């Protein structure tokens, strides 16, 4: 029994760890998002409109964020272009 408990204990230990790891990533992400300036969503839409003039893109594919790196504010745009097939 003790051995079984021990083994089960080892396996279960993971779920709280998993919760903490997932939360750590999520909270970091949501905190930068919450701090983002109010104009960001509108700017994102306008940038999308411009890109859409030239490329057929999926609206959801554009990721935009403002981060701080080494004391500089960095505007980060990330867009996956579709395959040529379309």
């Amino acid at each position, binding site marked *: 029994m003790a051995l079984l408990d021990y083994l089960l204990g080892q396996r279960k230990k993971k779920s709280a760890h998993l*919760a903490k790891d997932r939360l*750590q990533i999520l909270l970091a992400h949501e905190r930068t998002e919450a701090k983002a300036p109010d104009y960001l969503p509108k700017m994102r839409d306008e940038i999308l409109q411009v890109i859409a003039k030239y490329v057929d893109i999926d609206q959801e594919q554009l990721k935009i964020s403002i981060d701080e790196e080494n004391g500089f504010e960095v505007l980060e745009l990330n867009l996956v272009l579709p395959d040529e097939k379309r």
Partner: protein
Amino acid sequence: MSKVIVVTSGKGGVGKTTTSASFSTALAMKGHKVAVIDFDVGLRNLDLIMGVERRVVYDFVNVVQGEASLKQALIKDKRIEGLYILAASQTRDKDALTLEGVEKVINDLKADGFDYIICDSPAGIEKGAQLALYFADEAIVVTNPEVSSVRDSDRILGILQAKSRRAEMGEDPVVEHLVLTRYNPTRVTAGEMLSKDDVVDLLSIKLLGVVPESQEVLNASNSGEPVVLNHDSDAAQAYVDIVERFLGADKEHRFLTEEKKGWLNKLFGKK
């Protein structure tokens, strides 16, 4: 100097009203004059948990809308000297509260010599919750050791830091306290539940206390007595500790480890 304290959480059903009721009661038991306000307009639960539901004639909305005076609406607790309850309205919609109206009620309570004004927030992070926390000097963030509750607590902390009156006026920030409730030490030990250290780490906020999962909480709500009045229960002692720490006492955290039950207790299921 009166202090306004919001009890908030983001996520619903984590123990805000339970905490508001016991925290207010215990504060009044320490000799302070306390008003506890139910901001959950449309649902109204605090009066039930406090056992005063049959004495509600006028409510918070009536006062905000000028249909009743504060004196008429404040319900004086019959058990504890210095404890007053302002019930929420059950019939009005959420927009019945205005910022100006709430401000006036809070200022009137301060002028009446209340030491503490406790605001029991509705769930969510929208208007109702924002109104409940707007005037706060301090916040009790009620969290369960569970992913969605921790996440929502983090969001409400962000709102406290950005959208409270203190934040908007550029004053000292709202003082934040964590109350971790429905804690199950057995499951924490088994690695199935976030520990108090995990949650404190994640939210980076000062721990005011841990309230264990306890059957007495349901018993207390059944009988309309804040659980803190049931002196034998762990939950009651946890809430007393919380208030004493809040008032500056240095008390070690309790109820963090599995209770070692003797075989007799186990056999008879004594809690």
